[in-house]
């Protein structure tokens, strides 16, 4: 034993030296691509929904400067938050210096610092669906409105001050409201009526943002869902149809004269860069095979022109089991598509360049659903 002592001391000493050597902090996560010098956007966050009841909403982060992808940043940065990010994360938005994650199953909106993903507040908004932002205010649509005497339920929109993070005014809209758009001092809300498939809602609610009351309803089509705006002011709204004899569709709405034009395409997921919308449409085949087809197309927002040639390369399309969401880098035009696979195993993020060719891919959490860039 005695003879081993010097060796033992030496080991301790060298260990001590290693421990004392100052090293730059290792970037967290895994390297997935080459670092980018002076990136225009620092990175992006990806919110994984997780199946309902699993309490598995997971926030991932990719950092351009290091090329590292990190799974589950929220629980790492906020270990003190009881039960983590929560159940079913359905929407992710960056507005100003803050990031908002709709945690639908947990009946809250988690507000984080966009740079660090540290917890700032939990807004108690039950069954929130979607968000829109304007003039320092956030607007959240929710299914959890008043019950009507006929058994149907109305939705509402909640206004939140993005500085004080206090819940503000609330307005009742149509049934099961989904996405929203702010235009000319008005809030347009797509109502789905998804709780009553035999009697879908078919209107857009128009809310005056000064008085915060619903001014009028524009009838468009049943089961409205997605909503976005063209730079020239054209309002687009998608209908999911009734999954039977009424097909899904996309409508261009003139908000002045309330005229509606059907474009004959469905929208499952979309992303917008400048005046182009990148759209994924999942088309469901007839019985008994129920063959599902995925259509990738682009829409010129100002001209309403549709280009059916895919924005993804065949190589990428082949690898995707179930395309679930899409995002486009606001400057470079890189295309990000997520694959939810079978929804109960982790999904995949496909990072493609502007030509739709795969740059890298990375395993995410269960059901990767929303992506938000952080400058």
């Amino acid at each position, binding site marked *: 034993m005695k003879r081993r002592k010097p060796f033992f001391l030496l080991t301790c000493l060298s260990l001590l030296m290693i421990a004392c050597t100052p090293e730059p902090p290792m970037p967290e996560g895994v390297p997935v691509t080459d670092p980018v010098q002076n990136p225009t956007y620092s990175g992006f966050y990806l919110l994984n929904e997780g199946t309902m*009841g*699993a*309490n*598995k909403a*997971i926030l991932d982060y990719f950092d351009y400067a290091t090329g590292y992808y990190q799974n*589950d940043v929220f629980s790492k940065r906020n*270990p*003190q*938050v*009881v*039960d*983590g*990010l*929560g*159940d079913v994360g359905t929407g992710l938005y960056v507005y100003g210096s803050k990031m908002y994650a709709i*945690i639908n*199953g*947990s*009946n*809250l909106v988690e507000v984080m610092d966009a740079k660090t993903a540290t917890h700032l507040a*939990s807004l*108690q908004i*039950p*069954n929130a669906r979607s968000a829109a932002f304007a003039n320092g205010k956030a607007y959240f649509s929710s*299914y*959890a409105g008043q*019950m009507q005497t006929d*058994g149907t*339920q109305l939705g509402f929109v909640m206004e939140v001050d993005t500085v004080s993070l206090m819940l503000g005014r609330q307005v009742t809209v149509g049934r099961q409201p989904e996405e929203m758009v702010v235009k000319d001092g008005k809030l347009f809300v797509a109502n789905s009526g*998804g*709780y*009553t*498939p*035999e009697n879908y809602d078919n209107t857009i609610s128009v809310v005056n943002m000064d008085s915060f009351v619903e001014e009028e309803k524009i009838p468009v089509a049943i089961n409205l869902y997605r909503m976005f705006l063209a730079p020239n002011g054209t309002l687009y709204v998608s209908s*999911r149809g009734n*999954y039977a004899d009424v097909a899904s569709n996309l409508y261009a709405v003139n908000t002045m004269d309330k005229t509606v034009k059907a474009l004959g395409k469905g929208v*499952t997921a979309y992303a917008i860069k400048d005046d182009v919308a990148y759209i994924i449409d*999942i*088309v*469901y085949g007839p*019985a*008994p095979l*129920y063959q*599902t087809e995925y259509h990738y197309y682009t829409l010129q927002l100002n001209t309403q022109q549709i280009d059916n040639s895919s924005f993804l390369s065949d190589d990428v399309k082949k690898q995707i*089991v*179930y395309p*679930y969401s899409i995002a486009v880098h606001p400057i470079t035009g890189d295309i990000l598509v997520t694959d*939810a*696979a*079978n*929804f*109960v*195993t*982790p999904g995949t993020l496909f990072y493609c360049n502007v030509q739709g060719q795969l740059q890298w891919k990375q*395993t995410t*959490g*269960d*059901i990767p659903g929303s992506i938000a860039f952080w400058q």
Partner: protein
Amino acid sequence: MYADMVVVSSFDTTKIYELEEIEFAQPRRKASVAPLQTMDNKTLTLLNTQSVADAIRFFSGVQLKDYGGVGGIKTINIRSMGTQQMGVFYDGIQLGNAQNGQIDLGRFSIDNLEEIKLYNGQKTDILQSAKDYGAAGTIYLTTKVPQFTQGKTRFTATMKAGSFGLANPSLLWQQKWSENISTSVSAEYTYATGRYHFQHKKIAPNGALLYDTTMVRENADINAVRTEAAVFGKLYKGQWKAQVYNYYSQRGLPGYVARNVYEHHQRQWDDNFFVQASFQKQVLSFYELLAKAKYAYDYTRYLNPDTTTQYIDQSYRQQEVYASLANAFTLYRWWKVALSADFQWNYLQADVKNFVFPMRYTGLLSLATDFNWQYVKVNASVLGTFVSETLQKGVASPNRNVFTPAVLLSVRPILTELFDIRAFYKRVFRMPTFNDLYYTFICNSSLQPEFVDQVDIGITYRFQWAGKVLESMGIQADAYYNYVTNKIVSVPAANPFRWQMMNIGKVRVIGTDVSFDMGFRWREDWTMGIKGTYTFTRAQDITYPNSPYYGGQIPYTPWHSFSALFQLGYKGWHLHYSCIYTGKRYEQSANIPINYVEPFSTHDLSLGKEWTGKRCHFYVSVDVNNLANLQYEVVRGYPMPGINGKMTFKVTIE
């Protein structure tokens, strides 16, 4: 005794239980060629579990999904083949649920049960209905048969009370009307608030406490009433039985726990009613007959009053008519053949918009043969199942005609030793349930049946030493391979909010079930029993060949699990200790850290005393469950109770 591994029969403790019972249905010690595990009345009394599901945990090869609490759902899965591949028989007739194919064994009290049997493969009584051949694994619940030591009337009153606000009185009246006719009437009421504390705690890698909150499980209350009556008749070379059963319950559904979701408000009302009868007679020296009939009515109302999510108030009514005729012919002393024909009708009604009101006609025909030589027993059968469906609107599932075979073999190499080697092959299928076919938003009436192929090889060995301290010892071990194809799984359709059922699942299972028991007796008054089981399961999800998670262990299936029972008896005192260990599991077939579910073990202790007065017999016990006060989950998001207790007082007057 041949091959009938009554693993717990050595728990022979009380004078009162040693009394001979009237044999009903099958002679009890008939040989089983298939792997069989039994839990008899003595063990059930000492285990004193709240439900059948809690008792079945002590069998090997069983996975229990327990959502916690007195009213929580408890479903059993045998050898990882899926809950719906399992058949549960109540006094010889299968309990049906055409709607979702699941039997919640948490609803069956052990109060009026004589024994529980679990067969892998199938029961091999030659005189049995076609339905007995129709499941991959079967559980037989047998109710108590009237027994009398003196007089003609016997009353038993039991009161249990304990944690979760449990109050559980029951009454049993057994009456002998003549040598050939006796009756049994029983009633049981179960009330519990279902409230218990659970803890969410997180500790940082450096040991610092990040949070530690204790919450109360809410909306887990239950009110349930079970009433049952039966008439038992004896005939010359035969017997008959008629019974009526009703179970009414209303309960809260405590639901999952997630961030900011610590309370649910959903409620459920159930009424399960059935009336059934069976008749068995040796008509001729070579011909035996067994006839059965049943009518069942099941009502379920589900209410979600919470307008945060979707308000739902739906009622379902299921009806079933069943009739069976089984015929067994003894051609030689060693050769029997049997032919059975069953008919079943199911109808489901609901007050749901656009409901299709499915009606199903099922015909079952089984042909079986049994060779019983000195060294070898062979049981071979083929089951034909013919299903036809009609709907009020829409396209019904096409007619299905399916034939499934089974061969079971048992060899006893040395006649003087109770040592048997056995093997079986069985192919079996299950029809898609009404929910599978017609409940999802996108009806998929073209769904195919789900198939299982099972191969099993095993041994049983039983030693008996009369008069020795170690009276008996038994071991049985099986290795098996199961292959599930066309497994019905739900997958997202065009819209991720709308899921549909597809026949795409494939599961491959390799496993081992081992169980052993020892019975000791010394100085007349002392008895000791030890029983243990061990289960190894490798159940791989091989549905998606291109998935990186291909071959992962299927959800909630531990690789290793074991159970142990220890029982000591002395002059009417009983000390009973049991332990369950469930190894690591994953909640999804992606076996990654985030889906990891911690192993757990629970320890239960019970002390009881019984004594006999002039015309009375008393039994008092105190049970403490989860002694270590472990915070654990069987299913992620459904916290289980910590340490809890129960007192039982039982009196029998004769």
